């Protein structure tokens, strides 16, 4: 294969790899190609990334080549990552959210009672993400705060209102076949 042909193949391989891609690995995948040609293709690929002012660069790190964002754009990347905690919740947070959604309004001690573990940091996460809101104090000893789901919760899960939460019957509909 010509070096020109090798380049895009190597590019896609480095792109999908989770670990830096070594010349040795590339030689193994690209049967019949010499280590020299492969190395030359890598070098050229890296040079091209630099020359065209790409947002990415081909870095040579311990053990091989990897693609990474260029340092000068790290500010934007950081900004993106920070604004990112979108769709994912830890299992603890998701459990807490589920309990709140189905048992609202509910206090922290009551959540503890159901989950069997403290949920304070999960509740903080959920409050930060605005998936839950405080719903006033419960009129019992200690007047603990009650929590319920927010409008953002409905939007996040694509619900019009809480009555659209699936119930046991919906689930059984799926099981009975």
């Amino acid at each position, binding site marked *: 294969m010509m070096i020109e042909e090798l380049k895009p193949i190597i590019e896609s391989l480095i792109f999908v790899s989770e670990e830096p891609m070594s010349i040795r690995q590339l030689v193994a995948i690209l049967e019949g190609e010499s280590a020299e040609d492969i190395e030359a293709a890598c070098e050229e690929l890296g040079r091209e990334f630099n020359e065209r002012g790409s947002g990415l660069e081909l870095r040579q790190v311990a053990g091989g080549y990897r693609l990474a964002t260029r340092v000068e754009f790290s500010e934007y990347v950081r900004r993106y990552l920070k604004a990112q905690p979108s769709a994912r919740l830890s299992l603890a947070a998701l459990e807490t*959210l589920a309990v709140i*959604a189905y048992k609202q309004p509910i206090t922290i001690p009551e959540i503890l009672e159901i989950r069997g573990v403290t949920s304070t940091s999960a509740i903080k996460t959920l409050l930060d993400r605005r998936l839950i809101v405080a719903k006033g104090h419960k009129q019992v000893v200690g007047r603990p705060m009650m929590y319920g789901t927010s409008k953002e919760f409905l939007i996040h899960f694509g*619900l019009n209102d809480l009555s659209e939460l699936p119930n046991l019957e919906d689930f059984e509909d799926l099981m009975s076949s």
Partner: protein
Amino acid sequence: MEKTKEKDETGFSPSGAARTPGAQTALEASSAAAESADQYKVKLAVFEGPLDLLLFLIRKEEVSIYDIPIARVTQQYLDYLRAMQELDIGVAGEFLLMAATLIQIKSQMLLPRDPAIPEDQVEDPRAELVNQLLEHQKFKAAANALHQRATIESATFTRGELETDKENPEVSSTIFQLFEVFQEVLSRKRAITEIEIAREELTMAEKITEIKRLVSGGGTVSAREMFERARSRRELVLIFLAVLELVKELAIRLKQADTFGEILITKREEEAGAGGAGPDSEGGAAIN
């Protein structure tokens, strides 16, 4: 219905690997109808449902879907069902329902036309079935198109994982997952409660044995002293319940000398005949 369920999981298992989704393929696979029973069985399993079977028959007979010779097709349909039964393939309810529909259409077709209704207003008894078949056919083609797209998609790959990717276990939160998680929490709680109950029962049994042992030598034990030995509220309740249980079992007797005096627990000996003061009233009075 059981059958459909299984098929879902094994739809593309080795035996089905050669076929690709889509009406044509399913039909062609079936039209290569084999003579031997075993092969027959395999072919029949290809039908996803009654509509699939009907489409196959229509194509096999090379008739128009818009003008189905209903008597002939019905006969063939029933033959297939019979074959399925003979081969011991469970015939799902949907297949039987369709058989009933076909027979109904067939008999409607045989009815003489009402001369009072103008010809262009006579409704073809097959119309609904034809629409259903056409609709089904379209979705089968759409499924085929989706499959082709997915095949192309599976040939492209996104980047490998980066360090910046979240370390959280992926919990994508669809609303059903939220429900499932909730159910899991509840069942976990149930399991914990059951363990607690089991533990409590064990302790209760222990308490009963302990009290029995204390009074076994014919001695007397002060109830107050025993209650005072309890290290927790829960243990206190357990002792109390154990005493009650033993009274009920007629294993012990409670005695109280004066109204506010000590309650004493003694072992109850076998009594021949219950006198005026029965065990229940005796125990009950003492406890109150």
